[in-house]
């Protein structure tokens, strides 16, 4: 299968500051690609460009082989691009059930969404009436993932899934991400902490100062090079 998501030579800026300098990256259906890099490398910006939320100054965004550069983020979301932002992206004042109800815009009924969410994350079923803001960090992240899955995504963009979570919880969440990918979803995961995601990734890319410094097999070779790449001493 050819790439479902592809960025070709994307340049993007925040105001006058260019943060991406010609980034090229692709993710095929059923593949998990880990995008690693230090703080401020431009990882989140790549996800935002891929979701159509942040405009690319130049370069192209291709989804399913079609050039969709400039498409509205709402159209991309309806087609099946799902961005789960850093900070979980749930409505803290609404209950778990109401958070899931908000996703009925994508065409699924409340019952279907709850079945998907509660089957994959049974802990949420027991907390359906609880306000999302009072859930633990891991449960909130599960809710965010469940909300994403409710949209029946073809491309899943995850930003810092492990942020503020215990390693055990992170491991469980990434098991679910791997399971989602096995169902044919293209998954692009941004992570600052490589160990969490490299276990499930098919490929990894390291972004440093807006450029992909290394891309390929997430094996021991990459793990050994990461420190040098993060600290900028790689050639």
């Amino acid at each position, binding site marked *: 299968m050819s790439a479902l998501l592809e960025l070709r030579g994307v340049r993007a800026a925040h105001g006058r500051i260019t943060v991406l300098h010609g980034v090229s990256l692709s993710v095929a259906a059923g593949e998990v690609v880990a995008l690693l890099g230090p703080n401020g490398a431009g990882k989140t910006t790549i996800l935002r460009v891929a979701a159509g939320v942040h405009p690319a100054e130049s370069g192209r965004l291709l*989804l*399913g082989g*079609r050039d*969709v550069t400039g498409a509205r983020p709402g159209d991309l979301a309806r087609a*099946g691009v799902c961005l789960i932002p850093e900070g979980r992206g749930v409505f803290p004042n609404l209950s778990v059930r109401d958070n899931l109800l908000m996703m009925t815009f994508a*065409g699924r009924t409340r019952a*279907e969404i709850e079945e998907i969410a509660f089957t994959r994350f049974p802990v949420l079923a027991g907390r359906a009436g609880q306000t999302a803001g009072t859930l633990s960090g891991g449960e909130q992240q599960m809710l965010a993932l469940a909300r994403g899955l409710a949209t029946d995504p073809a491309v899943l963009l995850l930003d810092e899934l492990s942020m503020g979570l215990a390693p055990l919880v992170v491991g469980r969440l990434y098991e679910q991400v791997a399971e989602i990918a096995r*169902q*044919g979803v293209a998954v692009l995961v941004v992570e600052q902490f490589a160990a969490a995601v490299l276990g499930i990734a*098919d490929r990894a890319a390291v972004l440093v100062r807006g450029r992909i410094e290394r891309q390929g097999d997430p094996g021991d070779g990459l793990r050994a090079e990461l420190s040098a790449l993060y600290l900028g001493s790689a050639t």
Partner: protein
Amino acid sequence: MSTPGTSTEPGRNENGPAAGPPDEARADRFVRELAELKIPDPAAGRAALWLRLGAVLMAAGVALAAAAYAVSHGTRDPLLQRDAITLGLGGVTAAVAGSALFLRYSLTGFLRFWMARQSYDLARLADRLLEREARR
């Protein structure tokens, strides 16, 4: 590690906008839906530009109309007065058009949110009424 293109996820709601053949893989459906996607001309989406143009037209129109009124009052020359009346009418037209543009592009976002909230509240009300009926 994964098997590409073998979605076992159930398809969307049959009434949903994206229903397709039941055995169609998610990736294939995604490609099909994207092929049907109409990508707007970026120039058509410059809401901020239209909003600013509306504000400028509104302010300039009012200023022009006021200036024309002052000019027509400050002279006894009928030719100048007629010019001022024409300018004043142009100013009023510009102000009306500018106001319409400004309202169109400033209220859209607000109204969209308001309608979403109304829909949500109505759905909650319907749920509560149904629950009350069921308890009886």
